[in-house]
């Protein structure tokens, strides 16, 4: 604490605004390869960053060496000569919502228990099919965040997280099948059955290889499929940077119907015990729930202080730091549930696909809304029934045409990796190409 206060005091004297951000972390990881425990890793980390505004321009520096406060300040002053024009006032002391993201029990989960959880996941999956070779990971994590600025703003909180994951590989000849599931929470997880049941269901559904199909076909994305294929092209258009810059297809589209009425999406950093949640963002702006899509209409964009200033808008509390200056990004995304069960959706399909993993979906022109890739894990539906796995098949589309008329949203949502909760989504027509 002394270091960051002394850095802030020194920085205040030579700049108009200053902000110090300090994070420490502790992480323990039990990792399993080829069906058995391979290593136990412990990581300790720390990270100190300084943002100043000097002569109206932003200066920034960061380090994990905390013995030389003057060097950190000098680096920031050095770059402030060239920095972007500051379009913000740092927040003064604020009231924050109560968001529970810390559970001390995580810190006390013994390594032995983590190892047991990993072994149980692997044993359960292999009990179903002994030919599957499994990797698994059990991780516990704790961070402490402190933020102080020259306008009297200050925030500090601790967060824990615990995650479980298993991945199985089934090889027959050169044919490879990848299955797996993961889960995370701010509290210790002790029940692996959700993960193992989902993984075993994937193995069951992929037991047979179905003959390939192609053309314009209906596709159901499972929650995992939504996360991999649809979320990134959807959310990138809401990033305040892309709005300010004019590169988002949603510029000037606030309030307009851009997608089917069936779909509503929220960014919400206030949900208890979700790893993407917190009391405030990385600039000390209070967390909140922000609608992005309400019944198909564009509701809000995601801003941090600087992009909000440039857009003449307000920060939505979405500043994140990934080692550099804060930048807007989603916190925890919620896709609202529809009213049709995924079983009914599949039962109504004459011929189509169910997609869990679309490999390479994020590689293309995501800012233009495009998604496309190889179906790494997906199933063929014939006359309302899943008949087996599809291979050598590519699916591509664009969310601005794919999420329009005929889309059906499932009635049960699931958390995918702790940062997204979504139901399955049915798209009536996507381009499916296959190798003969």
């Amino acid at each position, binding site marked *: 604490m002394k270091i960051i206060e002394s850095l802030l005091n020194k920085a205040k004297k030579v700049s108009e605004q200053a902000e110090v951000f300090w994070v420490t972390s502790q992480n323990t990881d039990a990792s399993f390869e080829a069906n058995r425990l391979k290593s136990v890793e412990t990581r300790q980390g720390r990270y100190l960053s300084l943002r100043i505004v000097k002569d109206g321009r932003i200066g920034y520096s960061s380090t994990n060496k905390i013995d030389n406060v003057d060097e950190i300040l000098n680096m920031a002053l050095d*770059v402030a000569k060239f920095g972007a024009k500051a379009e913000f006032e740092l927040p003064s002391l604020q009231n924050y919502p109560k968001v529970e993201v810390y559970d001390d029990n995580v810190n006390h989960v013994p390594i032995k228990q983590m190892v047991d959880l990993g072994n149980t996941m692997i044993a359960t999956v292999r009990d179903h099919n002994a030919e599957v070779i499994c990797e698994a990971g059990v991780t516990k994590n704790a961070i402490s965040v402190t933020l102080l600025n020259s306008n009297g703003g200050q925030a500090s909180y601790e967060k824990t997280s615990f995650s479980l994951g298993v991945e199985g590989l089934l090889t027959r000849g050169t044919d490879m099948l990848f299955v797996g599931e993961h889960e995370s929470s701010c509290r210790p997880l002790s029940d692996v059955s959700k993960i193992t049941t989902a993984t075993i269901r994937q193995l069951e559904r992929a037991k047979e290889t179905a003959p390939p199909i192609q053309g314009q076909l209906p596709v159901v994305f499972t929650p995992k499929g939504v996360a991999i294929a649809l979320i990134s092209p959807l959310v990138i258009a809401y990033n305040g940077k892309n709005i300010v810059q004019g590169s988002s*297809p949603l510029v000037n589209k606030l309030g307009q119907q851009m997608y089917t009425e069936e779909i509503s999406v929220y960014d919400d950093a206030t949900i208890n015990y979700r790893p993407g949640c917190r009391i405030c963002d990385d600039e000390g702006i209070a967390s909140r729930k922000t609608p992005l899509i309400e019944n198909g209409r564009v509701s809000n964009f995601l801003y941090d202080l600087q992009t909000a200033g440039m857009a003449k808008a307000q920060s939505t509390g979405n500043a994140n730091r990934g080692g550099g200056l804060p930048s807007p990004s989603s916190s925890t995304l919620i896709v609202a549930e529809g009213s049709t069960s995924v079983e009914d959706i599949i039962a109504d399909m004459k011929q189509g696909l169910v997609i869990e993993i679309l490999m390479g979906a994020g*590689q*293309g022109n995501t800012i*233009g809304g495009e998604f496309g890739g*190889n179906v790494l894990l997906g199933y063929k539906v014939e006359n309302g029934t899943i008949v087996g796995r599809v291979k050598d098949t590519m699916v591509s589309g664009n969310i601005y045409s794919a999420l329009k008329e005929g889309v059906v949203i499932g009635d049960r949502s699931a958390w995918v990796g702790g940062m997204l909760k979504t139901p399955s989504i049915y798209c009536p027509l996507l381009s499916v190409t296959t190798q003969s």
Partner: protein
Amino acid sequence: MREQIVDALKGHNADYIEIRLEDGKSSRLQYRGQELEDIGQSTGSGGNVRALVNGGWGFISFNDPGELRAKVELAVKQARLVGNEKSLIAQSDPIVDIVPLELIKDPLSISLNDKKRLLDEYIDVIWSTPSIQTSTISYSDGYKKVVFANSEGSYIEQSRVDVTARITAMARDGSDVQQSGISIGSKGDFGVVEDIHQQIKGCAERAVQMLAAPKVKGSQYTVVLDPILAGVFTHEAFGHLSESDFVYENDRMREIMVLGRKFGKPLLNIVDGGAVPGYRGSYKYDDEGIPSTKTYLIKEGVLVGRLHSRETAAKMGERPTGNARAISYSHQPIVRMSNTYIEPGATTFEEMISDIKEGVYAKNWYGGMTSMEMFTFSAGEAYMIRNGKIAELLRPVVLSGNVFTTLENIDAIGNDLDMNQGGGCGKGGQSPLAVSNGSPHIKISDCLVGGS
């Protein structure tokens, strides 16, 4: 410091222990639109201890290098929790070496002002192109010194300087956004980011042209890849498959990847090597202190080698290749590529496309991914080939396929090897690792291209 490290390694009840300490600094400049959005400098240091006991690994990483001996003890204790078999790592003679820094034009000696002036010129080039909506440039450079020591008596100091830049131009028509970009990088040479005005101009013009370009019809095509994309293909489609950590404990994979298996036609030769000098994936010793090598993976179409760490080499009864790499002190070294490329053949580009009635010429890259059997990679620029000639510009295309059949389907290899230094590789949460990849132009029959 050396004495402390060597002392901390002594007298533990473990089969093997290593210590890695790093110190570095970096700077970056990021433009969004015409504005310098982010400019920053950072310094960092940290280290790790990795210990092997009875076949199990313990690993501790930290920023504060104090009480090194206690950290070694903790790593050994964690390894003991894991291990329940005999430890097996390939033999290696201890190496003591201080490797001098290789520099051509040191980016750290160029002032921020001069870096900014150069990038401002590129901004002007892009924005003087009609119909450009916006652009992004991200430039970074960094210096890193790594000290490695192990319980077998090795002590190695290595340093490197990296430069990378990614320049993207975007054009928009209503809600239709198209982009075109270039990626460049080098080990120790700021010169690669200088004098690229013409390339950037072409890139900006192409983003605008793509707005009017048609989408390819999704189908199987004969595809010609330029050296950049063919390099990405080599890396994604085959390179990852030759990383032994996917193979050594999986009997089925060992059958698939048995040395002597035919993977392609006799014209196909694929190499990986950290010892190939002058590229981003070049280094003298890997992160286990093993000397880098040049390894033939495929020779005349046949699988002849693979990439190893000390552990995978020992467990497969082969020699270590110096391919155990870690992106930073907070990660364990894992089997990674270095400089991966297809060796040149004799065919000219004109000869290669001359007999293609309808095909796709795919250039440049957005990215690529692999699942061993399946790969997918995206081209940043693509054209139809019609009647042996390059025809209309297309929207960017995504190519995908089965590794085994696609390698078999390489029908022609050009005479124009070129290495791509602008990429980075991700694996096991460690990204982007400095690698290079390359190839001459190659022709692949029956390649799956996604489209409308």
